[in-house]
């Protein structure tokens, strides 16, 4: 991969990676750090990455960095902080707005999987490759996540 091709990846995928991490972790600073680290690794491994797989590679790295971030315990503090900030969502009229809001209330793993599926349009197989879960696990977790979203959504909409 040349520098030009790498820069092309920055323009094409950095918004997607940033959105994925930001929506998952809900922390702008961490999101930018992880985006930077993901692209750094893309550059460092540019000769090993199969052409056309750059986006999946970036999401894989970003996902695993998020797991590390969570394991380090940083997420705990942020989630507590976020709980304090939760507000009544009843003033949201748009179904998508409500869905985005309730998505933030599900566990980070479910959230990540939903984002990969709905925002990035990855197949279950591709998601399993990115997350290192089995395809069956991916399907079960996404099913459960949708069940939770639906229940939360109905609770608010009624």
């Amino acid at each position, binding site marked *: 991969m040349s520098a*030009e091709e790498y*820069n092309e990846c*920055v323009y094409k995928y950095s918004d997607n990676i940033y959105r994925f991490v930001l929506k998952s972790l809900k922390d702008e600073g961490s999101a930018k750090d992880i985006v930077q680290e993901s692209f750094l690794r893309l550059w460092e491994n540019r000769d090993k990455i199969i052409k056309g797989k750059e986006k999946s590679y970036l999401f894989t790295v970003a996902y695993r960095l998020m797991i590390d971030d969570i394991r380090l315990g940083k997420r705990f503090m942020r989630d507590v902080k976020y709980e304090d900030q939760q507000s009544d969502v009843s003033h949201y009229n748009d179904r998508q707005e409500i869905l985005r809001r309730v998505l933030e209330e599900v566990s980070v793993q479910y959230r990540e999987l939903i984002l990969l599926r709905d*925002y990035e349009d990855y197949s279950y197989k591709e998601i399993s490759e990115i997350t290192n879960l089995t395809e069956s696990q991916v*399907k079960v977790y996404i*099913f459960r996540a*949708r069940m939770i979203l*639906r229940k939360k959504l109905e609770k608010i909409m009624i």
Partner: protein
Amino acid sequence: MIRFDRNNYEEYALDYLENTMDENQLKAYMEFLRNNPDIESELSGLSENFPVLFPEQIILDDKKWLLRKVKPALQKILWSTSVAAALITGLLYIVFIDGSGDTSLDNRDSITADIIEEKNIEKNKIEEIDADIVKENPDPVVTEVTDEYSKLNPNPETVLLAEGNNSREKYTTSPREVVEPIVADICPIELNEVIAIAQYSFRDIAELYLETDVEKNPIFADNKTVFNDITDDFIFFLKEMNPFKNITEEDNRKKTVYF
């Protein structure tokens, strides 16, 4: 055939809801649901109100910090500018130091000092960029040329504009195969050695040499937009202006021209 039960139905629920099961699987799954009405109700509710998120636009506002320098284009500009400026420097050496020009030695030293002072900031910037490039991507051509220069080991006393300047080796290059034949063709004297040292912009050197405002000079007026990307323009300059035209056969003694 997969046997669906309460332990594995979740794994296939999305296939059922997204209608990606084959006919046999679908029949078996529907049979399972008929035998488990609580799950059927659950899936039915999800199907009626299936929560799918549409991507929202979130932009990473500044991407420049992620980008990598694209070496070839930038280096080409630096390279060609350096080469051109260096050759002019060499020409100045011939004209001024060897008595072909009218400028006195003191005057020449003064002008030289002024140029060095004025271009110091610009040179540092170029060096920083160049150092980054070389550090990230060592260029075999650069290495080769530098080695070639070191073998020549020129006598510093013969260097007019490079005294006290550390950038000499850094910007040394050898477009000799391109420029030397042209110089040989238009210069009436024999040049013993031609080496490149670049530290001034082509424009400043040209102005100094021509003692005129480059932009007002009819030869350069139409070429100013490409003035800093120079190889061809510099050859044009050599041929059109022939800076050697005032050099006589009497000057045909050993000279070292650094450019």
